[in-house]
């Protein structure tokens, strides 16, 4: 059993509380992503799981063991660091073998597993080289191989792709996902890149200022963000939010009127709608095009609706130009209503 459980985990650095009573359960074999802007506590949470930080309150469990007081070596985890942390004074072979040797595995088994790991990550030609002779992408693979061969039930990854260039990152992302499919180890993965999160995670925990703001599957996060923060953070370009007020079942904005959520009379609200869920041509929004950005596969419009500017995705062959007046229609079942005061989502989806 290799589930992971955080119970009311609290971590304080000097005067700041980095983790505020965080609760999270990662299921056996799940790929859990911790997502959030820098400083939100995602790396701290990961390091508390690893044992590299001592927690100031709560419990950390791996399987059914309480590991809160155990040093990293006794927790049976494996970790891939952001800087890879590949030992520069050892050959690739010895790097990959390191964890196995520390566990005093017999030589034959070490050799077998290192070769397997190297094959899995296409590192066979480099086994005899030193890390300094490898490229960044190759070193990253060494770090992953080193972690995987240890057979630790839980795998931790701290932004392992952020130091790769864009093209390599794309490739490595797919590789890691494929690897997880093959190896099926419980994985906790930290990133600030929401594309990585959406692509790789079984579930995503969006964090902010030391707390988990929403825990859901990628599609649920995308379609039904729990608040303005999640809606803006996930998806690129981010979700649009338009101010409006509820009146008799209608949401009245500065430049539009749409059917609103029931029973919210008088409330100040935000209408949340993603750029790709807005149709041009006809509809309740009155707007004026500010900018047209042709992006190859589609066009990104910046449109003024009333006093607010929103982004709209249009087909690549759109004939719209700057300064044109137009009408827009949000897809009704894709609208996400938020309370303007608290920023939180208002109604359950239809």
């Amino acid at each position, binding site marked *: 059993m290799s589930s992971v459980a955080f119970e*009311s985990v609290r971590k304080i650095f000097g005067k700041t509380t980095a983790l505020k009573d965080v609760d999270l359960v990662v299921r056996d074999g799940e790929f859990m992503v911790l997502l959030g802007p820098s400083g939100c506590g995602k790396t701290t949470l990961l390091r508390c799981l690893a044992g590299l930080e001592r*927690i100031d309150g709560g419990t950390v469990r791996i399987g059914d063991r309480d590991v*809160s007081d155990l040093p990293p070596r006794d927790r049976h985890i494996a970790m891939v660091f952001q800087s890879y942390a590949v030992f520069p004074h050892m050959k690739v072979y010895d790097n990959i073998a390191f964890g196995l040797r520390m566990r005093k595995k017999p030589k034959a088994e070490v050799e077998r597993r290192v070769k397997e790991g190297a094959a899995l990550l296409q590192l066979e030609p480099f086994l005899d080289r030193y890390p300094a002779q490898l490229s960044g992408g190759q070193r990253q693979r060494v770090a992953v191989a080193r972690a995987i061969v240890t057979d630790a039930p839980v795998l931790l990854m701290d932004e392992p792709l952020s130091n790769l260039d864009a093209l390599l990152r794309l490739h490595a992302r797919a590789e890691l996902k494929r690897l997880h499919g093959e190896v099926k180890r419980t994985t906790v993965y930290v990133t600030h890149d929401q594309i990585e999160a959406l692509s790789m995670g079984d579930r995503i925990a969006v964090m902010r200022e030391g707390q988990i703001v929403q825990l859901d599957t990628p599609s649920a996060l995308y379609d039904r963000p729990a608040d303005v923060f999640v809606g803006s953070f996930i998806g690129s370009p981010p979700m649009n939010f338009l101010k409006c007020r509820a009146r008799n079942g209608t949401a009245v904005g500065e430049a539009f009127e749409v059917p609103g959520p029931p029973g919210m009379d008088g409330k100040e609200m935000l209408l949340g709608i993603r750029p790709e869920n807005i149709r041009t041509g006809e509809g309740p929004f009155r707007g004026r095009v500010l900018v047209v950005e042709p992006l190859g596969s589609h066009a990104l419009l910046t449109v003024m609706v009333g006093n607010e500017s929103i982004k709209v995705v249009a087909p690549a062959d759109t004939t719209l130009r700057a300064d044109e007046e137009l009408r827009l229609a949000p897809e009704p079942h894709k609208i996400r209503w938020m309370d303007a005061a608290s920023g939180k989502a208002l109604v359950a989806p239809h």
Partner: protein
Amino acid sequence: MAVRARRALPFPAAIVRSEAALPLGLLAPTVIFLSLLILVPIAQAVLLSFQAADGTFGLDAYKRMFNDTAFADSFRNTILLLIAIVPIQTVLALGMALLIHSRFPGHGIFLYIYAIPLAISDLAAGIVWLSIFTDQGYLNTILTGLGVIKEPMAFLSYENLQWLFTAVVVAESWRATALVLVILLAGLQLIPREYFEAAELFGASRVKRTLLVVLPMLKPSLQSALIIRTIFAFNAFAVVLALAGRQLPVLGYEAYDWYYNNRNSNVAAAFATLILALTIATTVTYLRLFRVREGELGK
């Protein structure tokens, strides 16, 4: 599922259990060692200087120190040496540092050569220049060989006090310039290249560049270097001894002499305390003079 809360432990148990236990433990030997071998002797020196041989307190030791025939001379000489050596070395080291910093091809080799004196003790340096300045030494050989003088000059004799002094200054400059050089060079390398390039772009000549851009940014290093160099100058001892024997009294030698030859640790301690006081005074002066205001260097 039970959630465990950690209660804050009372001090000092908090320290022992806390994450500070390990680093403090690693530091402890150093702290203890240095306290015992620096703080304690300082206190002792001051104490000793205010005692007489039988342990009673008084200013006897200081009286004897001030009335010592060699005192005035040694004090004056020490200060003069300081005034002579420090500027010379600073300018020399600055020149060397700027040269190396320009990274001309082969600068690496020259750096090693300039750094060689770093590992030479003041005693050895004194002896080296003894071989040059002594009556039948190399300097006289060269000078008579070139016909500059007809007979060898007695550079190191009591009659030629200025030459004696000069010899000591030369020997010390030769030896310890490397120290200042290394500090200044490290400081130079910290100045981002853009400042040099911008100055050059705006038309500053090499000299102007040095004076207006480099020196101000070098303040912290200069401060460091000068403090260390001055402290060593106050302790000047073996160089003078090697070249001049007792003919050029300095404070460091007097301290040694009173202890070793006169077997009077109280007066020796008085000299030591005086040197200590002078050291602190000059260090504070340097710190004031070279004080870098916050933000001045863009830090």
